[in-house]
Protein backbone atom coordinates (compact mmCIF):
# COMPACT_ATOMS: atom_id res chain seq x y z
CA UNK A 1 0.00 0.00 0.00
CA UNK A 2 1.26 3.45 -0.82
CA UNK A 3 1.11 6.01 1.88
CA UNK A 4 1.73 9.61 0.87
CA UNK A 5 4.33 11.11 3.11
CA UNK A 6 3.96 14.47 4.77
CA UNK A 7 7.06 15.75 3.01
CA UNK A 8 5.68 14.77 -0.34
CA UNK A 9 2.45 16.57 0.43
CA UNK A 10 4.39 19.65 1.36
CA UNK A 11 6.55 19.46 -1.74
CA UNK A 12 3.61 19.18 -4.07
CA UNK A 13 1.71 21.92 -2.35
CA UNK A 14 4.55 24.39 -2.30
CA UNK A 15 5.96 23.91 -5.79
CA UNK A 16 2.85 23.70 -7.89
CA UNK A 17 -0.13 25.65 -6.87
CA UNK A 18 -2.10 24.20 -9.77
CA UNK A 19 -1.11 20.60 -9.15
CA UNK A 20 -3.92 18.18 -8.39
CA UNK A 21 -4.54 17.00 -4.88
CA UNK A 22 -2.79 13.75 -4.08
CA UNK A 23 -4.86 10.63 -4.03
CA UNK A 24 -4.28 8.54 -0.99
CA UNK A 25 -4.52 4.79 -1.49
CA UNK A 26 -6.89 3.11 0.91
CA UNK A 27 -8.20 -0.39 1.00
CA UNK A 28 -11.89 0.18 1.62
CA UNK A 29 -13.90 -1.72 -1.00
CA UNK A 30 -17.18 -0.51 -2.45
CA UNK A 31 -18.62 -2.53 -5.30
CA UNK A 32 -20.81 -0.46 -7.62
CA UNK A 33 -20.68 -2.69 -10.67
CA UNK A 34 -23.73 -4.91 -10.19
CA UNK A 35 -24.65 -4.66 -13.85
CA UNK A 36 -21.41 -6.48 -14.62
CA UNK A 37 -21.94 -9.19 -12.04
CA UNK A 38 -23.27 -9.64 -8.53
CA UNK A 39 -21.84 -11.34 -5.47
CA UNK A 40 -23.32 -14.74 -4.66
CA UNK A 41 -26.11 -14.59 -2.10
CA UNK A 42 -25.28 -16.85 0.85
CA UNK A 43 -28.68 -18.57 0.52
CA UNK A 44 -27.94 -19.31 -3.12
CA UNK A 45 -24.57 -20.75 -2.22
CA UNK A 46 -26.18 -22.89 0.44
CA UNK A 47 -28.67 -24.24 -2.09
CA UNK A 48 -26.02 -25.18 -4.64
CA UNK A 49 -23.31 -26.61 -2.39
CA UNK A 50 -24.78 -30.13 -2.03
CA UNK A 51 -24.68 -30.41 -5.83
CA UNK A 52 -20.95 -29.72 -5.77
CA UNK A 53 -20.38 -32.37 -3.13
CA UNK A 54 -22.53 -35.39 -2.30
CA UNK A 55 -25.26 -34.80 -4.91
CA UNK A 56 -22.97 -34.95 -7.90
CA UNK A 57 -25.06 -37.01 -10.28
CA UNK A 58 -25.50 -36.42 -13.99
CA UNK A 59 -29.08 -35.33 -14.57
CA UNK A 60 -29.25 -37.61 -17.63
CA UNK A 61 -28.35 -40.74 -15.66
CA UNK A 62 -31.07 -43.24 -14.88
CA UNK A 63 -29.86 -44.27 -11.43
CA UNK A 64 -30.64 -42.61 -8.15
CA UNK A 65 -27.79 -40.10 -8.30
CA UNK A 66 -29.02 -38.96 -11.70
CA UNK A 67 -32.65 -38.82 -10.59
CA UNK A 68 -31.66 -36.63 -7.67
CA UNK A 69 -29.86 -34.23 -9.99
CA UNK A 70 -32.71 -34.27 -12.48
CA UNK A 71 -35.20 -33.41 -9.75
CA UNK A 72 -33.05 -30.45 -8.73
CA UNK A 73 -32.84 -29.24 -12.34
CA UNK A 74 -36.60 -29.59 -12.71
CA UNK A 75 -37.19 -27.57 -9.56
CA UNK A 76 -34.81 -24.85 -10.77
CA UNK A 77 -36.60 -24.81 -14.12
CA UNK A 78 -39.90 -24.15 -12.34
CA UNK A 79 -38.32 -21.41 -10.23
CA UNK A 80 -36.81 -19.65 -13.25
CA UNK A 81 -40.06 -20.06 -15.23
CA UNK A 82 -42.02 -18.57 -12.35
CA UNK A 83 -39.83 -15.46 -12.36
CA UNK A 84 -41.12 -14.55 -15.84
CA UNK A 85 -44.56 -16.20 -15.83
CA UNK A 86 -43.53 -18.98 -18.21
CA UNK A 87 -44.16 -22.72 -18.22
CA UNK A 88 -41.26 -24.83 -16.98
CA UNK A 89 -40.90 -26.59 -20.33
CA UNK A 90 -40.43 -23.23 -22.04
CA UNK A 91 -37.11 -22.71 -20.21
CA UNK A 92 -33.84 -23.89 -21.78
CA UNK A 93 -30.80 -23.66 -19.55
CA UNK A 94 -27.63 -22.32 -21.15
CA UNK A 95 -24.15 -21.39 -19.99
CA UNK A 96 -25.17 -17.75 -19.62
CA UNK A 97 -26.78 -14.74 -21.24
CA UNK A 98 -24.45 -14.65 -24.21
CA UNK A 99 -25.27 -18.20 -25.18
CA UNK A 100 -28.97 -17.54 -24.68
CA UNK A 101 -28.81 -14.54 -27.02
CA UNK A 102 -26.80 -16.50 -29.59
CA UNK A 103 -29.19 -19.43 -29.44
CA UNK A 104 -32.24 -17.19 -29.80
CA UNK A 105 -31.03 -15.17 -32.77
CA UNK A 106 -29.07 -17.78 -34.69
CA UNK A 107 -31.59 -20.45 -33.82
CA UNK A 108 -34.54 -18.51 -35.22
CA UNK A 109 -32.70 -17.11 -38.23
CA UNK A 110 -31.35 -20.47 -39.30
CA UNK A 111 -34.72 -22.14 -38.83
CA UNK A 112 -36.73 -19.45 -40.60
CA UNK A 113 -34.34 -18.30 -43.30
CA UNK A 114 -36.63 -19.62 -45.99
CA UNK A 115 -39.19 -16.95 -45.03
CA UNK A 116 -36.90 -13.94 -45.13
CA UNK A 117 -33.49 -12.56 -44.27
CA UNK A 118 -34.28 -9.31 -42.50
CA UNK A 119 -33.73 -8.63 -38.79
CA UNK A 120 -34.69 -5.57 -36.76
CA UNK A 121 -32.68 -4.67 -33.70
CA UNK A 122 -31.70 -1.57 -31.75
CA UNK A 123 -28.52 0.48 -31.83
CA UNK A 124 -27.77 -0.20 -28.16
CA UNK A 125 -27.93 -3.97 -27.85
CA UNK A 126 -25.44 -5.91 -25.74
CA UNK A 127 -22.36 -7.15 -27.65
CA UNK A 128 -23.72 -10.70 -27.46
CA UNK A 129 -26.65 -9.60 -29.62
CA UNK A 130 -24.72 -7.05 -31.65
CA UNK A 131 -22.04 -9.60 -32.48
CA UNK A 132 -24.49 -12.19 -33.79
CA UNK A 133 -26.37 -9.62 -35.81
CA UNK A 134 -23.14 -8.25 -37.27
CA UNK A 135 -22.20 -11.77 -38.30
CA UNK A 136 -25.57 -12.29 -39.94
CA UNK A 137 -25.01 -9.07 -41.88
CA UNK A 138 -21.66 -10.36 -43.11
CA UNK A 139 -23.49 -13.48 -44.23
CA UNK A 140 -25.80 -11.40 -46.40
CA UNK A 141 -28.70 -10.72 -44.05
CA UNK A 142 -30.26 -7.27 -43.99
CA UNK A 143 -30.24 -5.59 -40.60
CA UNK A 144 -32.20 -2.55 -39.45
CA UNK A 145 -30.70 -0.99 -36.34
CA UNK A 146 -33.25 1.27 -34.71
CA UNK A 147 -32.04 4.58 -33.27
CA UNK A 148 -32.64 5.40 -29.62
CA UNK A 149 -32.34 9.23 -29.60
CA UNK A 150 -30.96 11.13 -26.64
CA UNK A 151 -33.08 9.30 -24.07
CA UNK A 152 -31.87 5.84 -25.01
CA UNK A 153 -35.35 4.56 -25.85
CA UNK A 154 -36.49 2.93 -29.11
CA UNK A 155 -39.58 4.52 -30.68
CA UNK A 156 -42.47 2.21 -31.43
CA UNK A 157 -43.19 4.05 -34.68
CA UNK A 158 -39.70 3.21 -35.89
CA UNK A 159 -40.24 -0.46 -35.09
CA UNK A 160 -43.50 -0.45 -37.02
CA UNK A 161 -41.95 1.36 -39.97
CA UNK A 162 -39.03 -1.06 -40.11
CA UNK A 163 -41.12 -4.21 -40.43
CA UNK A 164 -41.04 -5.65 -43.95
CA UNK A 165 -42.62 -8.77 -45.45
CA UNK A 166 -39.27 -10.52 -45.21
CA UNK A 167 -38.63 -9.55 -41.56
CA UNK A 168 -38.37 -12.67 -39.47
CA UNK A 169 -36.98 -11.40 -36.19
CA UNK A 170 -37.18 -8.35 -33.96
CA UNK A 171 -34.58 -8.39 -31.19
CA UNK A 172 -34.83 -5.44 -28.80
CA UNK A 173 -33.44 -5.61 -25.30
CA UNK A 174 -35.70 -5.14 -22.31
CA UNK A 175 -33.28 -2.91 -20.40
CA UNK A 176 -29.91 -1.60 -21.42
CA UNK A 177 -26.76 -2.82 -19.71
CA UNK A 178 -24.94 0.54 -19.69
CA UNK A 179 -27.60 3.16 -19.09
CA UNK A 180 -30.42 1.00 -17.77
CA UNK A 181 -33.13 2.44 -20.03
CA UNK A 182 -36.19 0.23 -20.29
CA UNK A 183 -37.55 -0.37 -23.76
CA UNK A 184 -41.24 -0.54 -24.55
CA UNK A 185 -41.16 -4.26 -25.14
CA UNK A 186 -44.81 -4.84 -24.21
CA UNK A 187 -45.85 -2.46 -26.99
CA UNK A 188 -43.48 -4.20 -29.39
CA UNK A 189 -45.16 -7.48 -28.41
CA UNK A 190 -48.57 -5.94 -29.20
CA UNK A 191 -47.26 -4.69 -32.51
CA UNK A 192 -46.10 -8.19 -33.31
CA UNK A 193 -49.54 -9.52 -32.45
CA UNK A 194 -51.12 -7.05 -34.88
CA UNK A 195 -48.65 -8.03 -37.59
CA UNK A 196 -49.49 -11.68 -37.16
CA UNK A 197 -53.19 -10.93 -37.39
CA UNK A 198 -52.45 -9.22 -40.68
CA UNK A 199 -50.92 -12.48 -41.94
CA UNK A 200 -47.23 -11.96 -41.14
CA UNK A 201 -46.86 -15.42 -39.65
CA UNK A 202 -43.12 -15.82 -39.81
CA UNK A 203 -42.11 -13.01 -37.47
CA UNK A 204 -40.69 -13.58 -34.02
CA UNK A 205 -39.74 -11.29 -31.15
CA UNK A 206 -36.72 -11.82 -28.93
CA UNK A 207 -35.80 -9.67 -25.96
CA UNK A 208 -32.54 -9.73 -24.06
CA UNK A 209 -33.68 -9.49 -20.44
CA UNK A 210 -30.30 -10.23 -18.89
CA UNK A 211 -30.28 -6.92 -17.01
CA UNK A 212 -34.02 -6.79 -16.42
CA UNK A 213 -34.77 -10.28 -15.12
CA UNK A 214 -34.92 -10.25 -11.34
CA UNK A 215 -35.18 -6.46 -11.33
CA UNK A 216 -38.37 -5.86 -13.33
CA UNK A 217 -41.61 -7.72 -12.96
CA UNK A 218 -41.85 -9.80 -16.14
CA UNK A 219 -44.80 -11.80 -17.42
CA UNK A 220 -44.13 -13.33 -20.82
CA UNK A 221 -47.86 -13.87 -21.32
CA UNK A 222 -48.59 -10.14 -21.37
CA UNK A 223 -45.22 -9.29 -22.85
CA UNK A 224 -45.90 -11.24 -26.01
CA UNK A 225 -42.28 -12.09 -26.75
CA UNK A 226 -41.33 -15.44 -28.25
CA UNK A 227 -37.85 -15.61 -26.80
CA UNK A 228 -36.33 -14.03 -23.71
CA UNK A 229 -32.74 -14.30 -22.44
CA UNK A 230 -31.64 -14.32 -18.81
CA UNK A 231 -28.43 -14.69 -16.88
CA UNK A 232 -27.96 -16.06 -13.36
CA UNK A 233 -24.97 -14.02 -12.25
CA UNK A 234 -26.86 -10.75 -12.58
CA UNK A 235 -29.14 -11.90 -9.77
CA UNK A 236 -26.71 -13.05 -7.08
CA UNK A 237 -25.96 -16.52 -8.46
CA UNK A 238 -22.60 -17.68 -9.82
CA UNK A 239 -21.40 -17.15 -13.37
CA UNK A 240 -21.95 -20.09 -15.70
CA UNK A 241 -25.70 -20.37 -15.99
CA UNK A 242 -28.34 -18.64 -18.06
CA UNK A 243 -31.64 -19.43 -19.67
CA UNK A 244 -33.62 -18.84 -22.80
CA UNK A 245 -37.38 -18.73 -22.67
CA UNK A 246 -38.74 -20.26 -25.87
CA UNK A 247 -42.50 -19.90 -26.20
CA UNK A 248 -44.29 -23.17 -26.78
CA UNK A 249 -44.61 -23.82 -30.49
CA UNK A 250 -41.62 -21.68 -31.50
CA UNK A 251 -39.11 -23.73 -33.44
CA UNK A 252 -35.45 -22.87 -33.55
CA UNK A 253 -32.35 -24.65 -34.71
CA UNK A 254 -30.15 -25.82 -31.81
CA UNK A 255 -26.67 -24.37 -31.82
CA UNK A 256 -25.18 -27.17 -29.76
CA UNK A 257 -25.95 -30.71 -30.82
CA UNK A 258 -24.88 -34.15 -29.70
CA UNK A 259 -27.12 -34.76 -26.71
CA UNK A 260 -30.78 -34.96 -25.78
CA UNK A 261 -30.64 -32.45 -22.93
CA UNK A 262 -33.01 -29.51 -22.72
CA UNK A 263 -35.53 -31.24 -24.97
CA UNK A 264 -33.04 -31.40 -27.84
CA UNK A 265 -32.66 -27.62 -27.89
CA UNK A 266 -29.30 -27.38 -26.15
CA UNK A 267 -27.03 -30.39 -25.96
CA UNK A 268 -24.60 -30.80 -23.09
CA UNK A 269 -24.63 -32.08 -19.53
CA UNK A 270 -26.45 -29.61 -17.31
CA UNK A 271 -24.30 -27.77 -14.81
CA UNK A 272 -26.54 -28.95 -12.03
CA UNK A 273 -25.09 -26.88 -9.18
CA UNK A 274 -25.19 -23.70 -11.28
CA UNK A 275 -28.71 -24.43 -12.43
CA UNK A 276 -29.81 -25.03 -8.84
CA UNK A 277 -28.19 -21.74 -7.85
CA UNK A 278 -29.99 -19.97 -10.70
CA UNK A 279 -33.30 -21.40 -9.54
CA UNK A 280 -32.72 -20.35 -5.94
CA UNK A 281 -31.60 -16.89 -7.03
CA UNK A 282 -34.65 -16.49 -9.28
CA UNK A 283 -36.99 -17.38 -6.43
CA UNK A 284 -35.27 -14.94 -4.08
CA UNK A 285 -35.33 -12.22 -6.73
CA UNK A 286 -39.03 -12.76 -7.25
CA UNK A 287 -39.79 -12.64 -3.53
CA UNK A 288 -37.52 -9.70 -2.74
CA UNK A 289 -37.82 -7.69 -5.94
CA UNK A 290 -39.71 -4.72 -4.51
CA UNK A 291 -37.53 -4.52 -1.44
CA UNK A 292 -34.32 -4.69 -3.47
CA UNK A 293 -35.56 -2.16 -5.99
CA UNK A 294 -36.68 0.29 -3.31
CA UNK A 295 -33.27 -0.02 -1.68
CA UNK A 296 -31.15 0.46 -4.80
CA UNK A 297 -33.41 3.23 -6.09
CA UNK A 298 -33.05 5.11 -2.82
CA UNK A 299 -29.25 4.76 -2.87
CA UNK A 300 -29.00 5.59 -6.57
CA UNK A 301 -31.24 8.64 -6.37
CA UNK A 302 -29.43 10.08 -3.36
CA UNK A 303 -26.13 9.42 -5.08
CA UNK A 304 -27.25 11.26 -8.20
CA UNK A 305 -28.65 14.21 -6.26
CA UNK A 306 -25.38 14.62 -4.40
CA UNK A 307 -23.19 14.11 -7.47
CA UNK A 308 -25.18 16.81 -9.24
CA UNK A 309 -24.71 19.12 -6.27
CA UNK A 310 -21.00 18.47 -5.81
CA UNK A 311 -19.66 18.12 -9.35
CA UNK A 312 -20.23 20.51 -12.21
CA UNK A 313 -20.14 19.74 -15.91
CA UNK A 314 -21.77 16.35 -15.81
CA UNK A 315 -24.43 14.82 -18.02
CA UNK A 316 -26.73 11.97 -17.05
CA UNK A 317 -27.08 9.41 -19.79
CA UNK A 318 -30.41 7.86 -20.67
CA UNK A 319 -34.00 8.52 -19.69
CA UNK A 320 -33.93 8.99 -15.93
CA UNK A 321 -37.57 7.96 -15.43
CA UNK A 322 -37.74 4.94 -17.69
CA UNK A 323 -34.76 2.98 -16.41
CA UNK A 324 -33.67 0.22 -14.08
CA UNK A 325 -33.68 1.27 -10.42
CA UNK A 326 -30.05 0.42 -9.74
CA UNK A 327 -28.19 2.07 -12.63
CA UNK A 328 -26.72 5.54 -12.96
CA UNK A 329 -24.67 6.47 -15.99
CA UNK A 330 -22.91 9.82 -15.87
CA UNK A 331 -20.56 11.54 -18.30
CA UNK A 332 -17.95 13.77 -16.70
CA UNK A 333 -16.79 16.49 -19.04
CA UNK A 334 -13.09 17.13 -19.71
CA UNK A 335 -11.93 13.72 -18.48
CA UNK A 336 -11.75 10.19 -19.78
CA UNK A 337 -13.73 7.40 -18.16
CA UNK A 338 -10.89 4.92 -17.92
CA UNK A 339 -8.79 7.40 -15.95
CA UNK A 340 -11.64 8.01 -13.54
CA UNK A 341 -12.22 4.27 -13.23
CA UNK A 342 -8.57 3.72 -12.27
CA UNK A 343 -8.64 6.58 -9.77
CA UNK A 344 -11.74 5.18 -8.11
CA UNK A 345 -10.34 1.67 -8.19
CA UNK A 346 -7.24 2.85 -6.37
CA UNK A 347 -9.58 3.96 -3.62
CA UNK A 348 -11.47 0.71 -3.59
CA UNK A 349 -14.50 1.80 -5.60
CA UNK A 350 -15.43 -0.50 -8.48
CA UNK A 351 -17.35 1.05 -11.38
CA UNK A 352 -17.43 0.52 -15.11
CA UNK A 353 -16.91 2.38 -18.36
CA UNK A 354 -18.19 1.40 -21.76
CA UNK A 355 -15.23 2.86 -23.65
CA UNK A 356 -11.92 1.15 -24.19
CA UNK A 357 -8.63 2.45 -25.52
CA UNK A 358 -6.28 -0.11 -27.01
CA UNK A 359 -3.67 -0.29 -29.75
CA UNK A 360 -3.92 3.44 -30.19
CA UNK A 361 -7.56 3.27 -31.15
CA UNK A 362 -10.41 4.32 -28.96
CA UNK A 363 -13.69 2.48 -28.99
CA UNK A 364 -16.12 4.88 -27.37
CA UNK A 365 -19.16 3.19 -25.92
CA UNK A 366 -21.54 2.51 -28.83
CA UNK A 367 -24.41 2.96 -26.39
CA UNK A 368 -23.42 6.46 -25.33
CA UNK A 369 -22.62 7.37 -28.95
CA UNK A 370 -26.09 6.17 -29.95
CA UNK A 371 -27.54 8.80 -27.59
CA UNK A 372 -25.96 11.42 -29.83
CA UNK A 373 -23.32 12.39 -27.29
CA UNK A 374 -20.12 13.94 -28.58
CA UNK A 375 -16.83 12.11 -28.32
CA UNK A 376 -15.80 13.81 -25.09
CA UNK A 377 -18.99 12.83 -23.30
CA UNK A 378 -18.85 9.32 -24.74
CA UNK A 379 -15.32 8.91 -23.42
CA UNK A 380 -16.19 10.36 -20.04
CA UNK A 381 -19.12 8.06 -19.26
CA UNK A 382 -19.09 5.97 -16.11
CA UNK A 383 -21.68 3.43 -14.99
CA UNK A 384 -22.46 3.13 -11.30
CA UNK A 385 -24.69 0.12 -10.62
CA UNK A 386 -25.96 -0.48 -7.11
CA UNK A 387 -26.85 -3.75 -5.42
CA UNK A 388 -29.01 -5.05 -2.63
CA UNK A 389 -26.11 -5.18 -0.18
CA UNK A 390 -24.75 -1.68 -0.74
CA UNK A 391 -25.19 0.65 2.21
CA UNK A 392 -25.74 4.35 2.78
CA UNK A 393 -22.26 4.53 4.28
CA UNK A 394 -20.76 3.13 1.12
CA UNK A 395 -22.56 5.75 -0.92
CA UNK A 396 -21.21 8.41 1.46
CA UNK A 397 -17.70 7.11 0.87
CA UNK A 398 -18.10 7.19 -2.91
CA UNK A 399 -19.51 10.71 -2.67
CA UNK A 400 -16.40 11.65 -0.76
CA UNK A 401 -13.84 10.17 -3.14
CA UNK A 402 -15.58 10.75 -6.49
CA UNK A 403 -15.44 14.58 -6.50
CA UNK A 404 -11.75 14.43 -5.52
CA UNK A 405 -10.98 11.95 -8.29
CA UNK A 406 -12.81 14.11 -10.85
CA UNK A 407 -11.04 17.19 -9.55
CA UNK A 408 -7.64 15.51 -9.83
CA UNK A 409 -8.22 14.45 -13.41
CA UNK A 410 -9.65 17.80 -14.41
CA UNK A 411 -6.60 19.52 -12.94
CA UNK A 412 -4.57 17.54 -15.48
CA UNK A 413 -6.91 18.06 -18.38
CA UNK A 414 -6.09 20.52 -21.15
CA UNK A 415 -9.80 20.47 -22.04
CA UNK A 416 -10.74 21.67 -18.56
CA UNK A 417 -8.03 24.32 -18.65
CA UNK A 418 -9.19 25.65 -22.01
CA UNK A 419 -12.85 25.61 -20.96
CA UNK A 420 -11.98 27.51 -17.82
CA UNK A 421 -10.17 30.16 -19.84
CA UNK A 422 -13.13 30.44 -22.22
CA UNK A 423 -15.52 31.11 -19.40
CA UNK A 424 -13.70 33.01 -16.68
CA UNK A 425 -16.97 34.02 -15.11
CA UNK A 426 -17.71 30.52 -13.94
CA UNK A 427 -16.05 28.64 -11.10
CA UNK A 428 -13.23 26.33 -12.20
CA UNK A 429 -14.77 23.33 -13.91
CA UNK A 430 -13.41 20.89 -11.39
CA UNK A 431 -15.85 21.05 -8.52
CA UNK A 432 -18.69 23.39 -7.71
CA UNK A 433 -20.89 23.79 -4.70
CA UNK A 434 -20.35 22.01 -1.46
Amino acid at each position, binding site marked *: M*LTPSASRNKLVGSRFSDAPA*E*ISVVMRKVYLDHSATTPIDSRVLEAMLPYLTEKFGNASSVHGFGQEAQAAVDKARRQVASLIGARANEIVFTSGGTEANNLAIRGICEAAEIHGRHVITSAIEHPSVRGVVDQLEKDGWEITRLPVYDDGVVRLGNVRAAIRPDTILISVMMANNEIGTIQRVTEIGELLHEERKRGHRHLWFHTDAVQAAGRLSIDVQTLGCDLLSMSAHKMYAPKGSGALFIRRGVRLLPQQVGGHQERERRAGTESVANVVAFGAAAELAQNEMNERNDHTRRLRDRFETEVERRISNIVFNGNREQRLPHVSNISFRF*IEGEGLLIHLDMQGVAVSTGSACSSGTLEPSPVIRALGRDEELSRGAIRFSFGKDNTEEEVDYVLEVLPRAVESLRAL*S*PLARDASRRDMRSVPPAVAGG
Partner: protein
Amino acid sequence: MNNPLSYFEKFRNHISRPRNAGELSDANAIAEETNPVCGDRLRLSLRIRNGRIEAARFLAYGCPPTLACGSAIAEIIEGMAIDDVAKLSKNEIIAAVGGLPSRKQHAASLAIETLHAALAKYAVTNGG
Protein backbone atom coordinates in the same frame (compact mmCIF):
# COMPACT_ATOMS: atom_id res chain seq x y z
CA MET B 1 17.14 -2.37 -4.71
CA ASN B 2 17.31 0.95 -6.50
CA ASN B 3 13.60 1.39 -6.63
CA PRO B 4 11.29 -0.08 -4.02
CA LEU B 5 8.26 0.32 -6.26
CA SER B 6 7.14 -2.58 -8.40
CA TYR B 7 6.29 -1.87 -12.02
CA PHE B 8 2.60 -1.78 -11.30
CA GLU B 9 3.13 0.50 -8.35
CA LYS B 10 5.24 2.86 -10.45
CA PHE B 11 2.33 3.27 -12.81
CA ARG B 12 -0.14 3.76 -9.99
CA ASN B 13 2.19 6.23 -8.40
CA HIS B 14 2.24 8.42 -11.50
CA ILE B 15 -1.54 8.26 -11.69
CA SER B 16 -2.16 9.02 -8.03
CA ARG B 17 0.66 11.56 -7.67
CA PRO B 18 1.20 13.12 -11.07
CA ARG B 19 4.50 15.01 -11.28
CA ASN B 20 4.78 18.51 -12.66
CA ALA B 21 1.15 18.88 -13.59
CA GLY B 22 -0.09 22.19 -14.91
CA GLU B 23 1.20 24.94 -17.17
CA LEU B 24 4.05 27.41 -16.88
CA SER B 25 3.13 31.07 -17.16
CA ASP B 26 6.62 31.88 -18.43
CA ALA B 27 7.04 28.92 -20.77
CA ASN B 28 9.07 29.54 -23.90
CA ALA B 29 8.17 26.25 -25.59
CA ILE B 30 4.65 24.86 -25.62
CA ALA B 31 3.30 22.01 -27.69
CA GLU B 32 0.14 19.96 -27.69
CA GLU B 33 -0.13 16.77 -29.68
CA THR B 34 -3.14 14.57 -30.24
CA ASN B 35 -3.26 10.92 -31.13
CA PRO B 36 -5.39 11.22 -34.28
CA VAL B 37 -6.94 7.80 -33.79
CA CYS B 38 -7.82 7.62 -30.12
CA GLY B 39 -8.00 11.36 -29.42
CA ASP B 40 -5.66 11.34 -26.42
CA ARG B 41 -3.99 14.70 -25.91
CA LEU B 42 -0.80 15.80 -24.23
CA ARG B 43 0.33 19.38 -23.66
CA LEU B 44 3.85 20.18 -22.54
CA SER B 45 5.04 23.60 -21.50
CA LEU B 46 8.75 24.11 -20.99
CA ARG B 47 10.94 26.89 -19.70
CA ILE B 48 14.31 26.55 -21.40
CA ARG B 49 17.31 28.60 -20.33
CA ASN B 50 20.92 28.23 -21.43
CA GLY B 51 20.30 24.98 -23.28
CA ARG B 52 18.67 23.35 -20.30
CA ILE B 53 15.05 22.63 -19.36
CA GLU B 54 14.58 24.58 -16.18
CA ALA B 55 10.96 23.60 -15.72
CA ALA B 56 8.46 21.32 -17.42
CA ARG B 57 4.72 20.94 -16.89
CA PHE B 58 2.19 18.68 -18.53
CA LEU B 59 -1.55 18.45 -19.05
CA ALA B 60 -3.13 15.29 -20.42
CA TYR B 61 -6.49 14.01 -21.54
CA GLY B 62 -6.93 10.34 -22.27
CA CYS B 63 -6.48 6.88 -20.91
CA PRO B 64 -4.40 6.27 -17.77
CA PRO B 65 -1.18 5.42 -19.68
CA THR B 66 -1.34 8.82 -21.37
CA LEU B 67 -1.64 10.51 -17.99
CA ALA B 68 1.20 8.43 -16.55
CA CYS B 69 3.49 9.05 -19.53
CA GLY B 70 2.78 12.78 -19.37
CA SER B 71 3.74 12.79 -15.72
CA ALA B 72 6.85 10.70 -16.36
CA ILE B 73 8.20 12.77 -19.23
CA ALA B 74 7.63 16.06 -17.40
CA GLU B 75 9.52 14.69 -14.42
CA ILE B 76 12.37 13.18 -16.43
CA ILE B 77 13.21 16.16 -18.61
CA GLU B 78 13.25 18.80 -15.90
CA GLY B 79 16.86 19.84 -15.39
CA MET B 80 18.16 18.04 -18.48
CA ALA B 81 20.15 19.60 -21.31
CA ILE B 82 18.02 19.89 -24.42
CA ASP B 83 20.59 17.96 -26.44
CA ASP B 84 20.08 15.02 -24.10
CA VAL B 85 16.32 15.47 -23.98
CA ALA B 86 16.14 15.19 -27.76
CA LYS B 87 17.64 11.71 -27.50
CA LEU B 88 14.99 10.38 -25.11
CA SER B 89 13.23 7.34 -26.47
CA LYS B 90 9.77 5.90 -26.13
CA ASN B 91 11.25 2.95 -24.25
CA GLU B 92 12.69 5.21 -21.56
CA ILE B 93 9.23 6.64 -20.94
CA ILE B 94 7.74 3.16 -20.86
CA ALA B 95 10.36 2.11 -18.32
CA ALA B 96 9.69 5.20 -16.22
CA VAL B 97 6.05 4.23 -15.78
CA GLY B 98 6.98 0.66 -14.98
CA GLY B 99 6.23 -0.83 -18.38
CA LEU B 100 3.19 -0.78 -20.62
CA PRO B 101 1.45 -3.55 -22.55
CA SER B 102 2.03 -3.23 -26.29
CA ARG B 103 -1.52 -2.07 -26.91
CA LYS B 104 -0.93 0.90 -24.61
CA GLN B 105 2.52 1.94 -25.81
CA HIS B 106 1.08 4.62 -28.06
CA ALA B 107 0.85 6.70 -24.89
CA ALA B 108 4.65 6.81 -24.64
CA SER B 109 4.90 7.63 -28.36
CA LEU B 110 2.57 10.57 -27.81
CA ALA B 111 4.78 11.83 -24.99
CA ILE B 112 7.91 11.70 -27.17
CA GLU B 113 6.14 13.32 -30.12
CA THR B 114 4.90 16.16 -27.92
CA LEU B 115 8.36 16.69 -26.52
CA HIS B 116 9.88 16.82 -30.01
CA ALA B 117 7.18 19.26 -31.11
CA ALA B 118 7.98 21.55 -28.18
CA LEU B 119 11.70 21.42 -28.89
CA ALA B 120 11.09 22.14 -32.57
CA LYS B 121 9.03 25.20 -31.65
CA TYR B 122 11.74 26.38 -29.33
CA ALA B 123 14.33 25.93 -32.07
CA VAL B 124 12.26 27.97 -34.52
CA THR B 125 11.62 30.86 -32.14
CA ASN B 126 15.15 30.88 -30.77
CA GLY B 127 17.03 30.21 -33.94
CA GLY B 128 18.30 26.94 -32.65
